[in-house]
Every structure is written in C-alpha cells, then in structure tokens.
C-alpha cells in the first residue's frame, strides 16, 4: 500500500468517531427532518409524502405568518445586544479596582439556567413585582404595567430577557477581542493625535470586526430560534402575541403531533437562518489585501 493512501486511511480512522457522531446526531436528523417537512407524520403512522402541502398550509395560516413576523421583530435584539455588549466590554476592559467582580456579575446570567431566569423575570414582571415597584417609586407610572399580560408589549418584555440573558456571553467574547488588540496600537494612535472617540471608531471597531461578525451571526441565529424564554414565560400568549416561528413548530409538533407542518415551519426558519448568516458574512467580513 502506498504511503499516502495508508496515511489517508489512518486519518479517516481517527476522524471516524467524530464523523459517526455527526452523521447520527446532526446530518441524519437534518436530512430526516427535511424529508418529514414534505410528509404527513404523527409519530405513529408511517410518513406519507404530500409534497408542498405543509408549506401551502403554513402560508395560509395567520398564526404562522404572525410567528414569522414576531421572529423578524425578535431580530431587534441583535443590534441592541451587540452595541450594549461592546460598550460593556470596553467599560470592563479597564483596570479599575474590583472590575473582576463586575465582569463576573455581568456573566452570571449566562451560567444560570433559562428556567430559573424565566421564573425570576416572571416575578419581576408581575403587577406587584420589582419592576413595577421601581417604576412607581420613581413616579414614572401610576398604574402597574402588565408586562407579560399586555399583548402590545409582551414580546418586547420577553426580548428584554433574551438581551439580559445573552449580554454577558457576548461581553466576554468582545472582551477577549479587545484584549487581543495591542496596547501599542492605541499608544501609536495617541501620538497620532486620536482622541478617545476616534480611537474607538477608527481602531477598536475595525479591529473587532471578526468578533463582531461571529457575535452577530450567533445572536441572529439565537434570535430567530428564540424559544426557551417564550416557552417558560408566556407559552406564546397573551393572545398568541409572543408566538415565534420555533415556538409555533413546537406547538404543532409536540402538542398537536403534526410533525409534517412543524418541520416545514422549522425548514423555513432554517432558510431564514442561512440567508441571515450569508448577509452577515457578506457585509461584516473584514476586507483583506
């Protein structure tokens, strides 16, 4: 046997366990799920091929269209979380006394389970909860706000929790990006006459672009796939105002056992994710020469 083919075999042998796991737990579910999206399937009977029927039903379903709209609205989380995370990272990147405790505090929600976070925020959002208490104490409101009961603001209230929960994670990523920028570059900019604002816009932001791209893609995907907060805090209510596309898929799949339609909804969400990730790559990838 030639050396090169023997070496290839060895390489494939080492890769085999990982490839097997990927096949079983990633590629197979994606392929099978995509197939199911074109069938009627209720876990008991064998799937029946129905072509594009599930997709036609989805496009005729107002609830799905509203869920899609809500998922699109959820994308507002992306710029907000990115800007806040960058600003927070710049702030905690200073060597101030006790700064490590601040970093840890901002990171704490990331390591807290989403169910606990959901329960805490449900308490915070109730009419006699902390948030209404603070707003009343500050004389901003007279009557309590039903954050999760008012269908006009419930989605925003859930989105706020997503921002609060994810901020620490993105802050840490940006902090790593900031700490990779050499201090000498800032000193050179100081000697070139750059003020703090110019250093931020002309040095920090361009040099953070690879991190911004990564965080942007991750947060876009997380926003489109928003599910856990909705499931724990509102179950899609009130009046289905917090239905997101994935929550819709969950409702139809797990509750109604209409897996064909649920996976067709997921299929559409996946296409959205791919398109948004492409847009991120297209416009945020740093140009090299």
């Amino acid at each position, binding site marked *: 046997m030639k050396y090169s083919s023997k070496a290839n075999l060895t390489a494939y042998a080492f890769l085999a366990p990982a490839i097997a796991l990927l096949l079983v737990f990633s590629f197979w579910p994606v392929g099978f799920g995509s197939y199911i999206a074109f069938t009627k399937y209720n876990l008991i009977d064998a799937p029946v091929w129905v072509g594009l029927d599930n997709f036609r039903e989805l496009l005729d379903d107002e609830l799905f269209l509203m869920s899609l709209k809500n998922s699109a609205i959820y994308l507002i989380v992306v710029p907000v979380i990115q800007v806040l995370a960058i600003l927070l990272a710049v702030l905690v990147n200073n060597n101030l006394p006790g700064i490590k405790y601040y970093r840890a505090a901002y990171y704490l929600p990331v390591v807290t389970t989403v169910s606990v976070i959901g329960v805490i925020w449900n308490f915070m959002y109730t009419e006699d909860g902390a948030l209404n208490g603070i707003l009343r104490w500050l004389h901003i409101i007279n009557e309590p706000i039903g954050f999760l009961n008012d269908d006009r603001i419930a989605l925003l209230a859930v989105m706020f929790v997503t921002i609060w929960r994810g901020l620490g994670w993105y802050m840490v990523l940006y902090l790593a990006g900031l700490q990779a920028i050499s201090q*000498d570059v800032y000193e*050179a*900019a100081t000697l*070139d006459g750059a003020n703090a604002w110019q250093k931020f816009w002309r040095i920090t932001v361009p040099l953070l672009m690879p991190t911004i791209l990564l965080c942007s893609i991750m947060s876009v995907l997380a926003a489109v796939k928003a599910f856990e907060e909705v499931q724990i805090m509102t179950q899609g209510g009130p009046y289905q105002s917090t239905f997101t596309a994935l929550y819709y898929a969950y409702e139809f799949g797990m509750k109604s056992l209409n897996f064909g339609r649920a996976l067709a909804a997921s299929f559409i969400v996946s296409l959205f994710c791919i398109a948004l990730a492409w847009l991120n790559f297209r416009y945020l990838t740093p140009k090299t020469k």
Partner: protein
Amino acid sequence: MAELKLKNLQKTYEDGPTVIHGINLDIRDGEFMVFVGPSGCGKTTTLRMIAGLEDISGGELSIGRQVVNDVPAAKRGVAMVFQSYALYPHMTVRENMGFGLKLAKKPKAEIEAAVNRAAEVLQITHLLDRKPKALSGGQRQRVAIGRAIVRKPDVFLFDEPLSNLDASLRVQMRIELAKLHKELATTMIYVTHDQVEAMTLGDRIAVFNGGHIEQVGTPLELYESPANLFVAGFLGSPKMNFLPAKVLGGKLQLADKAVLDIRVDRPDGENVTIGVRPEHLRIAASGVSAVVDIVEHLGDTQIAYVHVQGVKEALALKLASGGQTPANGSTIQLAIDTQHCHVFGADGRALALRSREAVAA
C-alpha cells in the same frame, strides 16, 4: 527641531516603586542620543515620559524650551517608533502613514505628498497599498519609521526598533537609520539594550542603571573612560575583565601576588578592582599565570577565556586570528597592558591614576 532638557525627572507608580530617581540630561538640537542599559533600568520609561505616554511624577521636561509635563502626547511634537512597530493592522501602509495628518484634518493632497515623500526616502513606494500583515519585519519597521517621518516631528523617539529583526537585517537597518539621521538632522532618542547599536548610532550615549543615569558621553568616551564599574562592564564585547587587587606601596597587587605598575593615590591595603579590556591582554613569556578554558574562533579574531587564580569570572583575551592558538586546558602567561587599565575603588567609581608606565608583567 528641538533640544530637550530633563531636570530631576522622576517616575513613581501609584502605590508602587519609584523607577526613575531624578534624571538630569540635556539633549542637543539634532543630536542622536542613545539610552542604553539592561532590562528594567528605566530607559524605556524615560522615553515614554518624553513621548507623553507616561505621566511625569516629578521634575521637569522641556522640549524646545517649553515645559511639556502637562502637554498631551500629540502636541509635544514627537513621533515614536515602537518595538512592536504598532502599525494599524486594518489600514494599508498609505493609510498608516497618513493617519496622523488625516486626524489633524490636513488636505488630502498634502497628506498624499507627505506620504509619497517619506515612502521614497524609505524605498517603500511599492508597498503603499499593502496591509501590514503582507509585509516582512524589515518592511514593517520601515513603515513605522515612515509614519513617524510623515508627521515631521521635532523629536524622533525609537523604542528598541530593531530588536525584532534578524541579525543581518538589523545591521542593514542600523546603517539606514544612521543615514536617515544625517538626512533629516532631527533630534533622535533611541532606546536599546544592544551596545553595538548604541556605540554605532549614538552621537552620545546615556547609560541607565536602576533608574539612574550612570554616565553620559560619546561612545568613545564611555568606552575609554568609564566612570564606574557598571559602565565599564556594560559597554564592550566581550566585556571588560575585572581583577581584584590591593594597593601596595602606591602600586597594585593581584591575588597571585604579582604587582602591576599601576599607580594610584590610595592607602595601602585598600581593595580595588582593575579593569582591562580583552584587547589589552596578551600571551607572553612571563606574567600572570592562567589556565585556558576555551577558545572561540570568530574568523578575524579569536577569543580565549582563561582562569586566573583569585578571579571568579573567566577573563577574555582577544588574539589575532593567524597567531598562536593555545590549547584548551594549557597554562599560559598573561601580559597586562597597564597603560590601558582602569582602576575602580570599593564604591565602584573609577579612580584617577597617577601615572601609567610601560607594560608590566
């Protein structure tokens, strides 16, 4: 162009140690001043205080007769070349070099002209549209120098600019820097721990140690008349040999009882240190007995390291390449050129010699 005055300049970090203990130094207009010293001696901190990148804790710093202690870095008229080059990685060479002028809102045509002129001087015109990561170390260093030139500063500051380059490129860049200084005739302050750079580039050298300046002078002054043991040992390669001795009747007696005809006005029995450079030791028929440890062949010369009774460190002596090479482990006799010896007192300071007589054995 500008002269600099450092008057009792001090640096103390908050809740930390004092690292610069009151430095006094005048740097003349157009002078190439080299700060040299071992790691942690305070040379870079002093340079950064001049640049405005470190606060001055005490004393006064003047550039061009203006006290600049509280003047922001960008307004001091200084430009700095960093050891790491500190180029902006996301900008092209052209943008890197023109960044300072762009921030100063200079017209585009003026920036373009200044960048092109500097690029021509440094022969990097063909690199102007590349980004730093597409450049070699030497090219990056040129760009960093170009960025400094474009700003037309009164003072250039160099912080170990050649230490990341390989040996041959370092020699080449050293020559180019010397030429550049001649062309621009601007005041330059150059920090290095490399004594060859210090000796070859500097009009004058300031030798730093432990936050103090040990001695300031021209390279030859420092080499030929070191003020103390530190300067004597720091400059020169191989470094100066030190032999402990005792004053005996105005002359000096070595540990092996040999007496050298070096005359000092010190009382009998006082301990002193004799300093002698490797080129002022030679193999003779009689003299101080030494055992050869190893001989290094450098092409044009040979360096022999020998052990002498009563001297801790091996002594180095330079031998002509074509001459006799002593065998490792053999015993030789060393002649010391007493006319070129230095004597240092117990406090490490150089002692005045009364007279120098012919070579003694």
